[in-house]
């Protein structure tokens, strides 16, 4: 199966780790304060450097965000997305080494309607987040999930390009940008002035009805994820952003990867968990936090006072077996505690699958809910599963197997 470079022998023996010198492995001077993976101990200063560098390197290496581009940051209030916001802020600041060069905006989607939270609770969370966003100076958009009912049916279609994008390489774009902007920095856009959520009660009611009618937590989570994604893409499109940045961290993506397989979304693994997601055409989704483990993010946020807001979600305070996602999360984290290379090993699958995915992309049409490719494959599974006896309803061809199962719960 997968080849793993690390040697497992030392990792099960806790005593060995403790008997190592507690100096930072990088500077070898200061006392180590954090252990990442097995045996990698960093002091506070070196850890910060490592953390910041990883973010810039991730964006720089992938060369997908061009200078001057408008990028929408999807912030959920959780530690990873807030950390991402913080990194973008630091990266854009004047004296940053290897300065970032894009124009950010922030979006937050209030999902309280689906969770049954009261308007007061929702407003409170929004106020807290609003003050956090205001402090960054970036324009921000706060939307209730209810807006999903107002999405045009053409959400899956690319918007017509407003200007002709010249076909230039990344390097040329950077050079050009540096020359024309030698002495000035990108001034942040004027902040939007928001006075509160505009929630239509009837929409909230409809939302609650939909979620209330779904029997399993797994299906609810899946639907929430889909609705959120569609709304994010629509927002990016309608407000003129060309990129969407999501804050999924490594641990979360590893869990998502395994859970996706259980849910029948194996064909979409690569784009669901890879760095960039091109399925929407004009809006490209990137995941710059993808190489950070949840532990690294939490530690950094704590040490460097990165604010985040705790917002309960569908699976808060649920048991281990409440949903497929919860069970997978529990499985991965427990395994990770004893075998620190669990997450990175799961991760390496993605790279391999990515190659295969790009290959099959050419031939199949897209499904409408998950917007994933594989119409041909879906039909095959569908027929074999015997769900419809020989009848070819046009509607059913539009769903992949997983989404079809989901809609059967509605």
């Amino acid at each position: 199966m997968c080849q793993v470079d690390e040697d497992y022998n030392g990792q099960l023996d806790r005593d060995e780790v403790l008997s190592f010198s507690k100096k930072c492995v990088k500077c070898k001077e200061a006392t180590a304060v954090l252990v990442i993976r097995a045996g990698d101990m960093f002091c506070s200063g070196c850890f910060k450097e490592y953390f910041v560098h990883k973010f810039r390197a991730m964006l720089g290496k992938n060369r997908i965000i061009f200078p001057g581009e408008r990028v929408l940051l999807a912030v959920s209030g959780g530690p990873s997305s807030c950390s991402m916001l913080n990194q973008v802020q630091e990266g854009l600041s004047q004296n940053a080494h290897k300065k970032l060069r894009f124009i950010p905006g922030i979006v937050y989607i209030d999902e309280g309607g689906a969770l049954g939270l009261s308007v007061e609770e929702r407003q409170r969370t929004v106020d807290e987040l609003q003050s956090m966003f205001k402090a960054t100076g970036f324009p921000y958009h706060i939307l209730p999930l209810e807006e999903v009912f107002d999405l045009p049916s053409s959400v899956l279609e690319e918007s017509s390009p407003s200007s002709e994008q010249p076909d230039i390489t990344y390097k040329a774009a950077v050079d050009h940008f540096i020359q024309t902007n030698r002495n000035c920095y990108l001034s942040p856009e004027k902040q939007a002035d928001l006075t509160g959520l505009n929630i239509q009660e009837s929409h909230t009611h409809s939302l609650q009805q939909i979620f209330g009618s779904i029997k399993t937590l797994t299906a609810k989570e899946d639907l929430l994820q889909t609705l959120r994604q569609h709304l994010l893409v629509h927002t990016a499109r309608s407000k003129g952003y060309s990129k969407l940045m999501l804050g999924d961290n490594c641990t979360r993506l590893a869990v998502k990867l395994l859970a996706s397989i259980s849910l029948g979304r194996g064909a979409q693994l690569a784009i669901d968990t890879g760095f960039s997601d091109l399925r929407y055409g004009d809006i490209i989704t990137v995941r710059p936090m993808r190489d950070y483990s949840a532990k690294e993010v939490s530690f950094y946020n704590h040490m460097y006072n990165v604010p985040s807001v705790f917002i309960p979600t569908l699976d808060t305070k649920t048991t281990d077996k409440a949903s497929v996602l919860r069970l997978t999360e529990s499985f991965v984290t427990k395994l990770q505690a004893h075998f620190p290379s669990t997450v990175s090993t799961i991760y390496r699958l993605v790279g391999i699958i990515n190659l295969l995915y790009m290959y099959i992309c050419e031939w199949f049409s897209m499904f409408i809910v998950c917007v994933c490719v594989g119409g041909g494959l879906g039909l095959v599974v569908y027929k074999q599963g015997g769900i419809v006896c020989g009848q070819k309803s046009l509607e059913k061809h539009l769903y992949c197997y997983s989404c079809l199962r989901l809609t059967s719960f509605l």
Partner: protein
Amino acid sequence: YCYPISLGGAELLFDGVKEHQVTLPSQSEPWDMKQLLVWIQRNLLKERPELFVQGDSVRPGILVLINDADWELMGELEYQLQDQDNVVFISTLHGG
């Protein structure tokens, strides 16, 4: 002996209170983390203990910091508490 304890994300299980000043009853041997966890479970944890502790230790996914350093570097459960030690529990399972 007094120990400030704070919770990041886990405060839902502790009545929503994030910061706790804990004074442990004196005993002949010094308190260690293992005993502290038992104490917390008995005295502070308001609900759903299985979301915080698992067996002798914390549930995997909860990061424990003692004086802003990873408890893995301090001996985890065997670490002996000293007066004014600051203990932080951060739930890494939440949020993205």
